[in-house]
């Protein structure tokens, strides 16, 4: 078990929220630390471009 998993269970979530904004609000309303990522589909959502991007990075 990694330290991050132990930390999650012993101290609760400290979260990066990627997607539905309401999920970040839910965590925040319970006192959890959370950062919301302003996510967009990568490469305009084009699957071929995404694959190419992943190969390059």
């Amino acid at each position: 078990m990694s330290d991050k998993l132990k930390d999650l269970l012993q101290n609760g979530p400290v979260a990066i929220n990627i997607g539905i904004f309401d999920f970040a609000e839910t965590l925040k309303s319970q006192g959890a630390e959370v950062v919301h990522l302003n996510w967009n589909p990568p490469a305009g959502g084009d699957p071929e471009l995404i694959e190419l991007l992943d190969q390059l990075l």
Partner: protein
Amino acid sequence: MITRCIIRKNEYYDSVFLMRVAKRISGQKGILEAAALMGTEKNKELLSDIGMAGVETSSVRPNDLIIAIMAEDEEALSAVLGNIDHWLNESLGQAGTIPYRTLEEALTHLPHSNLAVISVPGQYASREARKALEHGLNVFLFSDNVPVESEFSLKEFACEKGLIVMGPDCGTAIINGIGIGFANVVRRGPIGVIGSSGTGLQEFTTLVHRFGSGISHAIGTGSRDLSDQVGGITFLSSLEVLDSDRETRVIALLSKPPGPLALQNLIHRIMQCRKPVVTCFLGPKQDPDDANLRYRTARTLDDAASLAVQIATNNPSPHLEDRSFKFQELINRERINKSPEQKYIRGIFAGGTFCYQAQQIFQDAGILVHSNLPLEGNSKLQNPLLSVEHTLIDMGSDEFTSGRPHPMIDSGLRYERILAEAKDPQVSILLLDFILGFNASPDPAGELLPAIAEARGQARKQGGSLSVIASVCGTENDSQNIQQQVKMLEETGVIVFSSSAQAAQFCALLMASSKEKCRV
């Protein structure tokens, strides 16, 4: 009538926010229909459902916003168009002041993060989850439509790194008292639970709360974890976690029937547990409790919660408010005014697990049903939009929710379905569930009351009487106010039970009593 489609290039919004925008547009005077969607291929196809089939969308990409509106006239349309910027900008205000664009940027701000909560569209979810794992984060993966091969690969990778992946298709978790996704506000306590379904975890945790005990952690695994293809990787790692967790004294495992290989591995691990384990594998009847087994088996979520609380507290098995003494009285009342042709039950569920559990309860009572999610031994509904004889429908399944809000968030689809069922003069009982908690509709009962009242009125017009039986999943600490929800339902003539299993058991009794009446 006038239609208009607006395309906004490179403006991405999440699906829940867009659902609210669409609802807001639809609620304006003179608006007949509205949709607000991102330009994925699937969403573009959905436009035809609202009569926008002719809209040119070939150049629209998944990060372009589509707003489609059907209005009575130009005036109504113009009024809405003038407000769209304002409504969309509300999301910018909500999203916080610092617009983090990458995971790396977000981690710079919160370097001690231990979890990524991911709810992006399915085709991008594996990529985001892998990045999070690479950065040493555990993952709560709400997204569905993730291929099973990707799920296996993500979970194997997580295992190598000593991390956990809850999901994909994970709706609920409670970690160290903090609810994630669709969770309820429950007391903390000695019972740890691992579950493959969100509503299963919600029902179990709220029942434990009502029985006076509490939850250490509730870990969601995603619906496929105990399939042989995935092998129960998250179940096994969660079991290890809870077995060594100081707060947890009893462990409960909730799932549909596991694959045979996954089950074998799971049982092997359960046998090594130092703590008592309760299992509830919903589905076809299993062997009764074996005294030699190191774990106890429960048939329903109620039984699992009761057993776990009994073991954790060393007190006698707790039970929900015992309404059995009222059953006969209620049955007698409900039988009054039924027409001779009323003989079928229709279950219209928001929670897939409730649909599944109700089928099990009916099957045990000798009642076979049709369903879009049939339990072994039941029939697959040919057309999910059309009920046949006894039918139980999971309205949260893909055929209903693709491009549309889940019934736990918005009751629109269930509203229409209830009215459709009421038109069938052979329908005698309507079985419903109401799910409270974080991210669920702020007023699930209130949204359906007009449909329930209209359905009951329709049955009276047809010379019969419609019994409406329901359960409410939640606690007094949820924002929706469970007492108020129950009161509103009861005032509309709905018989409300404290659990979905109890509601289904009552329906089975009511059906049996109708048969007896027929024989007489």
